[in-house]
C-alpha cells in the first residue's frame, strides 16, 4: 500500500505459514506481533507508533 493513499485504512495480514500478524498503518508504518490486541493497539496509536 502506498503511504498517503487510502487514508484511514488499517490492515492486518496473517503471514501464511506462521503465527505472526503484520499490522500496516495507512501511513505505511508496519509492525509485527503474534497477538491481535497488540497489533490493533499499535495501529490505533497512529501517528505515535515507531516502525520496527
Amino acid at each position, binding site marked *: 500500500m502506498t503511504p498517503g493513499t*487510502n*487514508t*484511514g*485504512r*488499517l*490492515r*492486518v*495480514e*496473517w*503471514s*501464511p505459514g506462521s*503465527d505472526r*500478524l503484520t499490522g500496516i498503518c495507512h501511513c505505511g508504518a508496519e509492525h509485527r506481533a*503474534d*497477538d*491481535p*490486541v497488540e*497489533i*490493533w493497539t499499535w495501529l*490505533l496509536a497512529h501517528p505515535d507508533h515507531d516502525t520496527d
Partner: protein
Amino acid sequence: MVFARNQWYVVAYGEEVGDGLLARTVCGEPLVLYRTGAGEAVALADRCVHRRFPLSESNRDGDRIVCGYHGFTYDPDGTCVAVPGQTRVPRTARVPAYQIVERDSLVWVWIGDGRGDAAAIPRAPWLESPSYTTVRGMEPLAARYELLVDNLLDLSHETYLHAGYIGTPEVAQTPITTETDEEAGVVHVSRRMKDVECPPFYSRSTGIDGRIDRWQDIEYHPPGFYLLHSRIAPTGVEPGPDGDDSDAFHVEVGYAIVPETETTTHDFWWVARDFALDDAEVSAFLHDSNRTVVLQDVVALNKLEKVMASEPAGHQELSINIDTGGLAARRMLQKLTAR
C-alpha cells in the same frame, strides 16, 4: 450496554410488512409496522398514548390504526385523529412515527434523532437482482447482538460448529487478512482457500464433486449489516484477466444483526446465488441447510449469553489471530455506542 443510536437498522423483510400489524422491537423501542393502501411502509411506536395498549394488537381502519382498548385512532404519521366519547382530541395526542426506507427488499428504520441520511444505508443489490435467487429467514436469538457480530466475523468456527455443512478443516487453518476502513466505517475480513475440500453446502448446490478454490470476503458495516461474498470454483478456475469470473459460483450470504433488547437479537439471514436460478430443489436445500447452520450458531450463542449473564462484568478473555476481525468490529461498535 447502550445501543448504537442514530443508526439505520433492518426492521423487516419487505414482504413481512403488509395489511396486518407487525410488532417488532429494535434497540428496545417497540414498533408497529404496516403498509398503507398506497403501499408505503409505516412504523409507529407500538404504544397507545392513552394507556399504552400495544397498537400492534389493535385494528386497522383504512390507513389508520384504531386502538384495541378504547379506540384512540391514529394516522400513519402518528397523529391521533379521534378519541372516544368526545370531539376534542388532546393536542399532545400522537405517537412517534419512525423514518422508514425500503431498499433491496429490506425495510430499514432510523433509530435516533431527527432524520437519517438514506444514502448511508449499505446495499445488498442481489436480493432484488434477476441474476440471483435468494432464500432467507429470520431467527430469534436469546443473546446480545455483539455475540453474533463476534461469531460472524470469525468464520474459523465453521470447522467446528458447522462441520458437515459449511465447515471443512481448511477454514480454520487458512490465514486471514483484516482491514478497517475508518472513513467508510467498514471492516473487511478475507480468507482465500486454494485446492480445498468442498463442503456439502456447496457441493450439493453447485454439483461440484472435486476440490475447490473457496474465497470468503466479509464486509461488516457496523452496527448491524454483514455481507459475506463467497466464491466457489473447481480448483484452477481463475477469474479471467478482464476480471470475468462467470465460470465460478457466487453465493452472497448476508445477515442483518438487529438488537431487539439488551440480551436478545433478530438474526435475519439470506443466501443469494447466481446459479441454478430456477431450481427449487437447490433453493430448498440451501434454505434448510443455511437455517440449520444459523440455528447451530443460535444454540451456541444462547448458551454463551447465559454464561455471560452469570458472570461478573469484566471477565477475562483471550484473543488469538482468528479474532483480529472481531476485535476490529468491536472497536468500531464501541465508537458508535459511545456517541
